[in-house]
């Protein structure tokens, strides 16, 4: 926040930012950390569920595995600054948590076992619902030039 210096920026020359800001620095570092935690825990959980009781709740466990993959992709993409991939993963996540969240409330019978996205991520303190919103906001905020132009024209080391 403070490095933007919104109120006092007129006093000094604004830094020239030809390229988009990194998605993995500043607040982005925290975002990647939280995504990483979710990627690890969701993968571990889905792995256990699929290996042991796949037949008990194929839909719920299949969705858990899918969610885990999405979190892993989002984590790696945000950490490496692959904006397009990160945007896609985060968007899929937002749609997933909204659809599965609604579905699990309308038809609880379809989800005998909870997934990360059931009840809009209630079991995880609604973090799965908040995270994609923060992710999209962060991607939006760090973008400077057109996403396609900055990615190809300036390969910042």
């Amino acid at each position, binding site marked *: 926040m403070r*490095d933007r210096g919104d109120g006092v920026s007129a006093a000094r020359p604004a830094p020239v930012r030809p390229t988009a800001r990194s998605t993995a620095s500043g607040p982005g*570092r*925290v975002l990647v*950390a939280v995504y990483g*935690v979710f990627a690890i825990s969701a993968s571990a959980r889905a792995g256990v569920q699929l290996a042991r009781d796949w037949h008990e709740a194929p839909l719920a466990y299949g969705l858990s595995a899918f969610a885990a993959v999405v979190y892993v992709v989002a984590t790696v993409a945000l950490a490496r600054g692959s904006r397009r991939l990160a945007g896609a993963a985060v968007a899929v996540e937002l749609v997933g948590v909204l659809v599965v969240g609604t579905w699990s409330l309308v038809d609880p019978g379809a989800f005998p076992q909870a997934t990360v996205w059931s009840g809009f991520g209630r079991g995880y303190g609604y973090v799965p619902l908040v995270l994609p919103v923060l992710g999209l906001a962060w991607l939006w905020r760090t973008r400077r030039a057109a996403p396609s132009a900055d990615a190809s024209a300036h390969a910042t080391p």
Partner: protein
Amino acid sequence: MVTPFAVVVVLLALALAGWALVFAVRDRAVVLRQLWGAGVVEAAILVQVVVALVLVAGGAVVTEPVTFWGYLVVSLAVLPLAAVWALAERTRWSSVVLVVAAVTVAVLQWRLLEIWGTA
């Protein structure tokens, strides 16, 4: 699992989270002393692993062994990974990363205690 010790680990992790939170609020980056603090929490988790191994070897039954050991391994990995990730950033956000990691460890330890309790 020895309940009092698990509670101690949870409290240590929460203390570390609180310390890092103060730094984050004051706009400061993680300092070396906090990493020593993280080392203390990490050592406590290691003791926890040894205790669990000894108890299981002595005949204690864990109802969900895969989940239990999974949580233990993940809780061991969280702080070192977060420390590396945080150190590359010399701003307040490194402190926030440490808060996230420490709270995660506390939650994982709490979950471990619950799983063990149902055994």
